[in-house]
C-alpha cells in the first residue's frame, strides 16, 4: 500500500497528488509517468510525473478529473492509502544542450513540463516556458516556473493573463517575444500538442510531444497504447511517451483516445447522486 501525502485541488478540476513511493521517488526522471490504482476495483491510471522529493520519498502528479476513476482519485485524502503505485515508466525526456528551448504546458501538462524545464535549465539551456489555459484562474505554479525559466509567458483564452487567445497564436507570440527556439517540448492535452506541432512544422523546429493514449499495463505488454509515428506503429509506454510531434498521426490518436468516452462517464450516472448530471 502507498500512502497519500497530499491530494488537493490546485485549480478547478485539476488535482495535485503526492504519494509516498520510495523506490519510484529514487528512480524517477523528467518525462516519466507512473501507473496507479485508487482502490482494489480501480483502473490502472497512467499519470505523468510533475515533481518528486528523493529525500522524503514522494512523487507528485497533476491530474484532471474526467471520469469515474479520476473522480475516485479526487476524493483521496492525506493519510489514505492506495493499492498500486508503479513506476517510473516510459523513457525519460531527452535533456540535451539544445541552446534555446521553448517548453509549452497546458492543463496537467503545466505540472509535467515543470521537471523538464528545471532539468533543461540545469543543463545550461536558455529556457522559455509558455503556459496556456482558458483563464488566469486555471494557471498554476507560475512562481515555480519563474525560478527555473528565463522567461514565463502566459496565454489565456479570455486574456485575463498574458496573451489573449490560444496556442494558435504561437508563431506570432514568438515573434513578439523575440524568441527563436532550437527545440520545443509540449506537454498537455491533445489539442495543444497537435496545434503546436502543426505550427512549428513549417518553422522547421524539432517539437517533442508527450503522448497520453489509453494504457493498461504500461510495461510493454498489452499494446493498446500504439501510436502511429512516421508511418510506423510505436508503443507509447516503452517507445515513448515522447515522440516527434511532426510525425504523429494525430487523427488516429484522437480517435483512439475516444474509444471509451461513454464508459468513462457512464458509472457516474449510476451513482444515484443528484449532483452528477
Amino acid at each position, binding site marked *: 500500500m502507498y500512502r497519500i501525502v497530499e491530494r488537493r485541488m490546485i485549480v478547478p478540476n485539476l488535482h495535485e497528488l503526492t504519494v509516498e513511493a520510495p523506490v519510484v521517488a529514487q528512480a524517477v526522471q523528467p518525462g516519466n509517468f507512473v501507473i496507479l490504482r485508487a482502490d482494489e476495483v480501480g483502473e490502472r491510471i497512467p499519470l505523468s510525473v510533475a515533481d518528486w522529493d528523493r529525500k522524503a520519498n514522494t512523487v507528485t502528479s497533476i491530474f484532471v478529473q474526467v471520469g469515474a476513476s479520476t473522480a475516485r482519485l479526487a476524493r483521496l485524502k492525506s493519510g489514505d492509502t492506495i493499492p498500486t503505485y508503479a513506476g517510473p515508466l516510459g523513457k525519460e525526456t531527452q535533456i540535451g544542450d539544445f541552446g534555446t528551448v521553448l517548453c509549452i504546458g497546458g492543463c496537467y501538462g503545466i505540472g509535467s513540463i515543470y521537471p523538464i524545464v528545471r532539468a533543461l535549465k540545469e543543463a545550461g539551456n536558455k529556457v522559455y516556458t509558455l503556459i496556456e489555459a482558458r483563464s488566469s484562474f486555471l494557471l498554476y505554479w507560475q512562481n515555480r516556473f519563474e525560478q527555473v525559466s528565463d522567461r514565463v509567458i502566459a496565454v489565456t483564452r479570455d486574456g485575463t493573463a498574458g496573451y489573449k487567445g490560444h496556442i494558435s497564436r504561437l508563431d506570432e507570440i514568438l515573434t513578439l517575444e523575440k524568441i527563436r527556439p532550437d527545440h520545443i517540448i509540449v506537454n498537455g492535452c491533445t489539442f495543444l500538442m497537435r496545434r503546436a506541432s502543426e505550427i512549428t512544422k513549417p518553422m522547421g523546429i524539432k517539437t517533442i510531444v508527450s503522448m497520453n493514449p489509453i494504457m493498461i499495463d504500461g510495461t510493454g505488454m498489452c499494446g493498446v497504447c500504439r501510436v502511429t509515428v512516421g508511418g510506423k506503429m510505436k508503443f507509447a509506454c516503452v517507445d515513448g511517451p515522447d515522440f516527434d510531434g511532426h510525425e504523429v498521426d494525430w487523427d488516429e490518436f484522437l480517435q483512439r483516445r*475516444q474509444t471509451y468516452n461513454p464508459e468513462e462517464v457512464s458509472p457516474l450516472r449510476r451513482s444515484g447522486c443528484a449532483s452528477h448530471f
Partner: protein
Amino acid sequence: MAKKIDYKRWPMPKQVPFERVKNFDEVALGYTEELARQEAARCLGCKKPLCVEGCPVGIDIPGFVGCIVEGRFAAGIKRIKEANALPAVCGRVCPQEDQCEKVCVLGKKGDPVSIGRLERFLADWEAASGRVETPAKAPPTGRKVAVVGAGPAGITVASDLALLGHEAVIYEALHEAGGVLTYGIPEFRLPKAIVNREVEYVRGLGVELRTDYIVGKTKTLDKLLEEFDAIFVGAGAGLPWFLDIPGEGLNGVYSANEYLTRCNLMKGFRFPEYDTPMKRPSRVAVIGGGNVAMDAARTSLRLGADEVHIVYRRSRKELPARLEEVENAEEEGVIFDFLTLPVRFIGDEHGWLKGMECLKMELGEPDDSGRRRPVPIEGSEFSMRIDATVCAIGNSPNPLIPITTPGLEVGRRGNIVADDETGRTSRAAVWAGGDVVTGAATVISAMGAARKAARDIHAHLSKEN
C-alpha cells in the same frame, strides 16, 4: 497378475455448452473421487514409465497415480509437489496430449491415462481438505536470489530455490502475481482463485513477493545485482504482433494481450462494478489459431457476442491450439473460417471498425515449420461485417530488461539468449527462462526451463560457498 486393460478413459464432467457461454465459471468441473480412482486404475504402472520422460518437470506420474488408486490422496499430492509447485494450474492448462499422455503406453491402442485430470484432482482435493502441506525446506544458505516476474517460470524458480534454503524475492511489474495465468488465461479455463491459492502456497515457502516493481525501470538489473547473488529473469510476454495491414489503428481492433488483460486481470467483464471498461461487441473475428485465439473467442461469447469467428490462414489440422480447447470452442458455437487471411480492416467515418476484407487460401508446399504453406487464391476477396477483431497471432518477448541491461545478449526477435540446459545468459549471475527467452510458448515449458535454471543457480551458489 493379468490385469484387464481398460482402453477407454473416463470423461470429466463439464458445464453444458448452452449454460457455460453465459458465465465465466470454470468449464471443466473435475473428476469426483470415484471417477478419479477408476481412471487411475487404468494405469499399467510401467516399469520404465515413458510419461515421466514426457513431463517437462519430471513428475513421478505412476507414483501419484498409484496413490490415487489406493485412495492415498495426501501422499499423491506430496509426490507431485516434489517436482511441481503448481499442480492445480498444470493439471488444467498443460498440453498433456503433447507430453506425458502422448507417450502413455495405453495410447498406442486406446486412450492414454488422463494424467492431467488426475493431477488436477489431487490438487483440488488438497485445497478442499484445507490441509495444504509444505515440503521440508533445507536449512538457510544465506544466499539471495532475485526473480523477475511472478509468472509460471518465476514462481517455479523461486519455490525451487526456497526449498533448497535460498532466499528468493520475486519482483512483479503488475499489481497481481501469476503473470499469464492471471492476465491471459480466462477465468473459465483457470479460475483466479486457484492461481491465488498456488501463489499463496509459494509465499508460504518463504518467498517474498513485491508487486508494482518493474525491473529495468524501478531498478535496473545491474542495481539489483548489487544486492543479490543471482538473478533469474522470467519477464514473460511483450508487445503483441499485428498483421501489418491497413486499418489496425481503428477503434475495435484489439491485440489478444489487451483484450484478455482487460477481461482477466482488470475484470472488465464485471464493468461497471470494476472500473476498467470492456466493450460488448456483437460480431467478433479472432485472428489466429492458438490457445490464446480460442480464449479470446470464447471470452467474446461470454461477453454476449452474437457471432464469433476464428479466422485462420491454414486448415483445422494445423491449428496450434489444444484439441480440447478447439472442441470446447466448437461446442460453444464459435465459427471457424479456415484458409482465410485478413488483408484490410474497414472503418466507419468515426474511426470504428465495421468490417474486414479477407482472401481465401489454399495449402501449398510445406514451409520451414513442416506445415503446408497457405497460398492466397487470386480473386477470392470477400468481406465480413464485424465490430471487433482480436489479433491473436503472437507477441515478442518483453522488451524492458533487454533495453535497460547493457551486455545482455539478445536474439533477433528481442528475446534474451539463454542456454537451453542451464538458462545461463551472457551476463554473469543472470539466468533467464520462459517466454522472454523463447517467445510465446506454454506454461509448462516455461516451468521446465525454470526448473533447469533453478538447478543450475543452486549448483552455482553452492560452489561459490
